[in-house]
């Protein structure tokens, strides 16, 4: 009896273990891929992926998608770690110069880019600049998060300005009057991630200055054009801004805007988006405009959000299929619309999409894409440019001048830093 009983118990236990293992086996047979993203400032954007696109893909294909979010600013570290260890997410969000740094470890997605481009009105040139590495698409551009001018219409009106100034010099004149009325400007000159480069590169370019020639070798920062841009930045800072901008990081201008401390800044659309939801009275008097023009034209910083597939991923085929599906109009249109127009598409099919009418004040962000370039333009993106950006060479050149250093000294310092960076390779 006792033997039989023990055998029974064993049978039950084995049957139980088998039953418990069944769903696991079934799950193991299904594919799972992970999409890594930096948390969006726009909550509804992440919610749309999590609650709409992920279940839809699973229903359609049986492939499970894990939408993994990482905090703002931590994506480069996460992707570097994944690449170095060869394990982690299969598809990743990627931006700025990183497709060019990680290119060897990213899958060639040219077929997706061609297909999506043909189906959705063609790519903006800025999209090609951000995604093509050595002739192959290594990142599929999703959208641009433009850095444009945010200005207070009520305070500008106090000094008789109804339309945003067209040139840097005109903006300077307005800023001088506004600072006298205790409504200073606030443009980041510290070591943030984006709001500093967001206006300083366009300012440099609009005066005709560049770090390096298009050959990617010849350092040309020491020029009359750069000197003019630096001279302008110095007086622009001194006569229109708060002293604290020298230490600002990316959150600072948003905070100052909501505290009604500044009348003009350079930022993404997040200022208006946040103000509309939390400070509606401020949102009513907030408008946005393209960057002012300089003697050599009008420019913007290309702040491209793209997606890449890691070439070493064991699920790279599935990841490739998912990226193709995600970039199809049916999915992409809804995803863009979920964030109003915070994310500006690189595909011409969306030039007149209804999302632009949700908040017409965002339209300058769409129009700015034709004059947007990556940091360091016209030099080809690569390790030297990434080093220059990481060392804040251009930002600190302007910031030192704003702190009182002589133009020739700050340019000389930047020139010697760039020569060292470019000589090293």
């Amino acid at each position, binding site marked *: 009896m006792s033997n039989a009983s023990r055998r029974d118990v064993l049978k039950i236990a084995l049957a139980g273990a088998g039953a418990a293992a069944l769903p696991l086996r079934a799950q193991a047979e299904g594919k799972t891929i992970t999409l890594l993203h930096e948390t969006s400032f726009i909550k509804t954007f992440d919610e749309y992926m999590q609650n709409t696109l992920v279940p839809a893909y699973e229903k359609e294909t049986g492939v499970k998608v894990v939408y993994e979010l990482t905090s703002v600013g931590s994506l*480069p*570290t996460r992707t*570097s770690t994944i*690449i*170095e260890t060869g394990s982690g997410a299969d598809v990743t969000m990627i931006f700025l110069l*990183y497709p060019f*740094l*990680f*290119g*060897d*470890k990213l899958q060639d997605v040219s077929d997706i880019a061609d297909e999506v481009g043909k189906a959705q009105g063609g790519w903006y040139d800025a999209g090609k600049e951000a995604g093509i590495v050595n002739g192959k698409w290594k990142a599929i551009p999703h959208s641009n998060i433009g850095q444009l001018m945010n200005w207070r219409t009520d305070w500008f009106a106090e000094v008789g300005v109804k339309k945003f100034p067209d040139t840097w010099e005109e903006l300077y004149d307005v800023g001088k009057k506004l600072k006298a009325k205790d409504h200073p400007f606030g443009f980041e*000159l*510290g*070591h*943030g991630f984006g709001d500093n480069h967001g206006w300083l590169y366009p300012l440099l370019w609009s005066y005709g200055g560049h770090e390096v020639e298009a050959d990617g070798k010849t350092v040309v920062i020491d020029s009359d054009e750069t000197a003019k841009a630096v001279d302008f930045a110095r007086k622009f800072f001194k006569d229109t801004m*708060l*002293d*604290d*901008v*020298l*230490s*600002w*990081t990316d959150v*600072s201008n948003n*905070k*100052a805007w909501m*505290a009604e*401390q500044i009348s003009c800044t350079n930022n993404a659309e997040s200022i208006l988006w946040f103000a509309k939801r939390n400070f509606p009275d401020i949102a009513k008097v907030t408008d946005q405009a393209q960057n002012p023009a300089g003697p050599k034209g009008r420019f913007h910083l290309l702040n491209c959000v793209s997606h890449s597939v890691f070439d070493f991923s064991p699920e790279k085929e599935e990841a490739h299929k998912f990226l193709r599906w995600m970039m199809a109009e049916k999915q992409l249109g809804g995803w863009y619309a979920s964030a109003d127009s915070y994310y500006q598409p690189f595909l011409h099919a969306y030039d007149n999409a209804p999302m632009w009418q949700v908040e017409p004040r965002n339209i300058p962000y769409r129009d700015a894409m034709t004059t947007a370039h990556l940091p360091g333009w016209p030099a080809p993106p690569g*390790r030297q440019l*990434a*080093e220059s*950006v*990481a*060392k*804040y060479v251009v930002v*600190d050149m302007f*910031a*030192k001048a704003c*702190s009182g250093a002589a133009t020739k000294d700050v340019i000389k*310092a930047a020139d*010697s*830093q760039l020569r*060292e960076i470019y000589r*090293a390779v």
Partner: protein
Amino acid sequence: MVVRSEPIVAVGRLQRRPVTLSTWLDRGSVFSWLMMAPPILFLMAFVGYPFFYGIALSLEDRMVAQPGTFAGLNNFIRDANDPVFWKVVSNTFIYTGIATVLKMVGGLGLALAMNQQFRMKNLIRALLLLPFIVPTVLSTVAFMWMLDPAFSVVNRVLIQFGVPKPGPSWLGSPILAMFSIIMINTWRGLPFYGITLLAGLQTVPVELYEAATIDGAGGWQRFRYVTLPILQPIILIVTLFSVIFTFADFQLVYVLTHGGPQNATNLLATYAFDIGMGAGQLGLGASVALTMLPALALLIVAITLYLRKKS
């Protein structure tokens, strides 16, 4: 008397017991190594391996996502030719030097005050540890608000005392920014000094103070000739730890200024991170981080030798 000695070998043979696992483990030499093995393995895996990997990286031209090529001392030569690197080295020494002195003097004062008898002594001693317990990122964000020009409680107080509006730009001026991060580091590190020195103070025998008082020593003389000599080894050890932590500080600067304005607050750790992670140059970043090694190693050796000599 005839003394016959027993053949030792035979006795040995007779008395030898078979070596079992438990008797082998009971041997002092085996047991001590057994006990030391886990921490040694742990240190090798989590300290030794990254350390030697860091040295290997610093000798390579190594981009993220690409295989490295041996570059000898090229990365260090590049650092030596980089003016920002020297600025960062100077910042790190200034930051560590001033913050350590402030923490040492302040911590000693704190410990002496806490060694007195007063009401709710234990509660106040516990509260003093708060700056040390609160995560650095959290307390730094609080300081970010306190030093913010629009919301600065510091500036509001100063304006009440007649400082012209809007008050000093605590993080915008290079000198004030360095001053601010030193002050915040001191605030955070003071309890470590204070509590450790307090523990040392409580070991000073009361008889020594009584004897000194009978000999006519005043308060200052009792401190100078009784308290300080006894506390000296503890002060040295605490300073050693504090210098190491401060020299390699990262979070405070990364959150508050990210090295700005114009590298005025950039330290070796933050600069190495920007080069390694921001620019993807792992080899060059490792070489910047490793510059901390000689200074710290010298300090550790000097303090260890001094303590050995004293003992």
